[in-house]
């Protein structure tokens, strides 16, 4: 433990309660960190690729999640180690930024750490390794730019987008109907996309799931599906050409924010108050009716009396609709959210061609479909599936596919998948390494080796001989000068990813390399770990 003495020879406290803390320094610290990072990567390694396996996670409360999505696995794993937490962060940031490739980025970081460990054992300073990695990552990213291809798509030609989404979905459990789901995802994204600005607002796509039925029954609803039903059991279940009043005020007597008291001391006051109260309800309903609304959607609850008045005046209503859903309904129907009854005017009403209630199964589950909206910019993907875990996993997969489609609309460059991009980068980095004098050269070579880890894992998961397959593909790439050769995971019979239609987005790949390098650099720079020992 570190002990310092001042000029009089008295011990000088640097760390409080030293004896209760464990401390790792220098190379030991780095190695411990690296091994923790590698351990995390090893867990995810088998989930990579179309033949990757799933993980089953049991939460502290005993709920079971079955998933293939790297970010979800790491999030639910409840890791304790600090470095492992960094890896979790890494996967999460890939999820936020790109939405796909969350497994790949961790595997990549793991293999970079593995190579770094070898270099450290040779006595290369960690900072030099980090710098070498930095240089190499820049080379790789530039190389990706060079081998990327642009493709054209439009509202009428969505095939390329569908193909890319299918690549993403093929590694998930839903690959049984990846074609359908990919089409749904692409259509949903195109419906909300602003092609001029090349921007997609994913919040406009609502993903709703209901247990039961088959995966094939999953549908795209041009409109909103809300898990609510009409407030009164006898209200009509089907409204055509609905004019919707979207309210955030309850059908209840007002509650002024200022503190106040209404004192009742005479019979007259009691009676006037009663009359007033009745008038309140009457007025509220009348105002909605006056504005011409044929459906009221309210964020809050109703009083029984108001509920009946609505029913009596033939004004169907839905209560307790969540804030987010309310916003989506407002966007979809072109209505305005009205906070007070006084402000309700005919212009502020939303319009929808059809509102209907649909019931499912043998239980009392009902959902409200709002379709044929004035503005079809908000859509809902409605997922059906055999069990709860399946629905959750489908939601995650659809999210990935949506992100991929969005990224393509932002930037329509693609690289080919199946490990071909990594192999090509590895070749490029390897050949660039020789041009760098100094110790970094070794680090750059290490980087090139690390890039091979992804195709290697792909081959391994597909039941192929990893080293044999990788070297064959690599030599083929160099021989034919064809950067599109990858691992043939599905046994199609060709190595050329152009023929297999396996695409990934360029920005996704670039981000993977950049993020992984950054985290690895960070881990390498740590040379002292002080942690409180077990208590």
């Amino acid at each position, binding site marked *: 433990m570190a002990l310092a003495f001042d000029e009089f020879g008295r011990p000088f406290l640097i760390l409080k309660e030293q004896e209760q803390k464990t401390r790792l320094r220098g190379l030991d610290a780095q*190695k*411990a960190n690296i*091994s923790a990072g590698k*351990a995390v990567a090893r*867990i995810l390694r088998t989930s990579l690729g179309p033949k990757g*396996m*799933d*993980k*089953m*996670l*049991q939460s*502290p409360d*005993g709920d*079971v999640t*079955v998933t293939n999505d790297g970010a979800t696995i790491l999030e*639910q*794993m*409840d*890791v304790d*180690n600090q*470095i*492992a937490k960094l890896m979790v962060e890494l996967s999460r940031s890939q999820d936020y930024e790109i939405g796909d490739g969350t497994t790949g980025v961790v595997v990549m970081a793991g293999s970079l750490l593995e190579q770094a460990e070898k270099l450290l054992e040779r006595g290369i300073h960690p900072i030099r390794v980090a710098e070498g990695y930095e240089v190499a990552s820049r080379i790789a990213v530039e190389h990706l730019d060079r081998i990327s291809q642009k493709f054209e798509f439009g509202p009428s030609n969505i095939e390329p987008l569908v193909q890319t989404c299918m690549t993403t979905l093929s590694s998930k*459990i839903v690959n*049984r109907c990846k074609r359908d789901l990919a089409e749904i995802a692409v259509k949903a994204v195109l419906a909300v996309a602003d092609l001029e600005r090349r921007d997609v607002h994913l919040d406009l796509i609502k993903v709703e799931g209901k*247990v039961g*039925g*088959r*995966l094939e029954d999953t549908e795209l609803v041009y409109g909103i599906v809300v898990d609510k039903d009409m407030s*009164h*059991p*006898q209200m009509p279940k089907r409204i055509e050409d609905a004019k919707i009043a979207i309210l955030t005020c309850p059908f*209840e*007597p007002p509650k*002024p924010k200022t503190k106040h008291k*209404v*004192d*009742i*001391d*005479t019979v007259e006051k*009691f*009676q006037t108050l*009663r009359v*007033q*109260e009745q008038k309140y309800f009457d007025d509220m309903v009348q105002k909605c009716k006056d504005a011409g609304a044929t459906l009221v959607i309210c964020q809050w609850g109703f009083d*029984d*009396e108001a509920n*009946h*008045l609505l*029913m*009596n005046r033939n004004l169907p209503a839905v209560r307790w609709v969540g804030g987010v859903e309310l916003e989506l309904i407002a966007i979809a129907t072109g209505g305005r959210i009205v906070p007070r009854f006084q402000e309700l005017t005919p212009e502020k009403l939303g319009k929808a061609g059809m509102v209907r209630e649909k*019931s*499912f*199964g*043998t*239980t009392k589950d009902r959902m409200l479909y709002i379709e044929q909206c004035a503005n079809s910019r908000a859509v809902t993907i409605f997922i059906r599936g*055999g*069990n*709860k875990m*399946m629905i959750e996993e489908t939601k995650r997969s659809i999210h990935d596919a949506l992100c991929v489609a969005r990224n393509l609309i932002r930037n329509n460059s693609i690289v080919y998948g199946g490990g071909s991009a990594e192999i090509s980068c590895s070749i490029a980095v390897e050949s660039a390494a020789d041009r760098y004098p100094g110790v970094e050269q070794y680090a750059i070579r290490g980087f090139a080796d690390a890039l091979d880890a992804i195709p290697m894992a792909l081959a391994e998961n597909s*039941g192929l001989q990893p080293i044999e397959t990788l070297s064959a593909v690599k030599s083929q790439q160099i021989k034919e000068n064809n950067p599109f050769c990858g691992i043939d995971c599905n046994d199609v019979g060709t190595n050329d990813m152009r023929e297999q239609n396996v695409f990934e987005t360029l920005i996704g790949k670039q981000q993977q390399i950049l993020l992984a390098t950054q985290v690895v650099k960070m881990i390498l720079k740590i040379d002292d770990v002080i942690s409180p020992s077990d208590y």
Partner: protein
Amino acid sequence: MAIERIFKDEASEEKGERARMASFVGAMAIADLVKTTLGPKGMDKILQSTGRGREVTVTNDGATILKSLHIDNAAAKVLVDISKVQDDEVGDGTTSVVVLAGELLREAEKLVAAKIHPMTIISGYRMAAECARHALLQKVVDNKEDAEKFRSDLMRIAMTTLSSKILCQDKDHFAKLAVDAVMRLKGSTNLESIQIIKKPGGSLKDSFLDEGFILDKKIGIGQPKRIENANILVANTAMDTDKVKIYGARVRVDSMSKVAQIEGAEKEKMREKVQKIIAHGINCFVNRQLIYNFPEELFADAGILAIEHADFDGIERLALVTGGEIASTFDNPETVKLGHCKLIEEIMIGEDKLIRFSGVEMGQACTIVLRGASHHVLDEAERSLHDALCVLSQTVNDSRVLFGGGWPEMIMAKEVDELARKTPGKKSHAIEAFSRALLAIPTIIADNAGLDSAELVAQLRAEHHKEGCNAGIDVISGSVGDMAELGISEAFKVKQAVLLSATEAAEMILRVDEIITCAPRQRENRIHAWKMICTSFHQGGNFVPILTS
């Protein structure tokens, strides 16, 4: 360098073969647990609660058994979940789906042991499931057009469903009850409108379906016990003290006399409300909320039957049968739709008094009164009847029907077997395994009935080699019989759901190669866990705990 711990304490991680084994063993143990309840000769289970009172449930329903278990094994939880979904979605086949998934995994385990990659097994299973579904689709019978035949189909389905339950002694009687009840729904699947009232006493055979509606309430004192041509107002309104709902209002007075005045005003208000209600021209008033003595007295004076505290479902059903609307304000008597019925009377079932509304207008809802020797019998009877009602209401919408008694499984197995022979590659092993798993269901049905399953299934297979064969297992006589003659039918929707969700669940479990269990949250005590400790010894003698108390 020792590898750092990356998980929290008590968290565990199972990898590769061990993980797969843990999930196989867990899933199979669950399947074995419910296996013996399958089929008409299946046995029941007793579940004892560890909570206060040690309540006992006797049941044959797979979903109920599995719901009540406290399970630690992750794969087992997947199976419990599919059985629950099956219950929600079609209502029956909750045991079959678990058993089929268990059998699929049992076969998969053998294939994995023979070094076939789980992904290959999955793709084989998928092909097989698709093929099996197709085979069923070709054999379905749809009698929607012919009302007579359709009804007899429904009867058969109800009888088949009920034959494995406690009600099997009187299955004709109950099948008729269930079919009548479902036909009244006119295609709606909302089973809420069929009310089941359980009254101990009498025998199961005394159960009956009431055309009208029975409300488990008493009539207020001094009010008429019998009303003919009733006009009914169904309401949801406060009849105790009608509070002023304006926020911040309170009564503050400075003398006793004023208190009395306000009290008087309050009473006046209630009287006015009652007057308004009476002004609707009704002679029966049903309220969801309480009715206090004062208004009740007023109603009695006006000769109106007032029923208080009918629960939410109660008034909704009542509104459905009588055609009235649920009212909460009473200012516009001309626009409120009243409900009508021919006769309201108090009836006695056992020693309880109930109110019967008969001769109703709409008649979408109805009531089934179950009688039986004990609460356990009644509970189980309700569950069985619920299963039958679910299946029937689903069949009304999707009227495709198949034969039962292991017939659909044999048909599927035959087609899948043929597919296996045509498919090249390792997948064909998986497809063959799928067909074996399908055959397990008739085998289990026969085993449970104490029959020679190997002999019977072999006979069945031979029979099914002929085209257009209707052979299935006749459990009663213990031989192979013609299902068309025996009148054993099942709904296509149930069979399809069993097939698809079992395959999906098996696929899900097969894809797992690692199980990470987080440290369990510390709990003081689990009060309502069901006590049932079950362990399973795997072939290798490995000990895997499946359930903990």
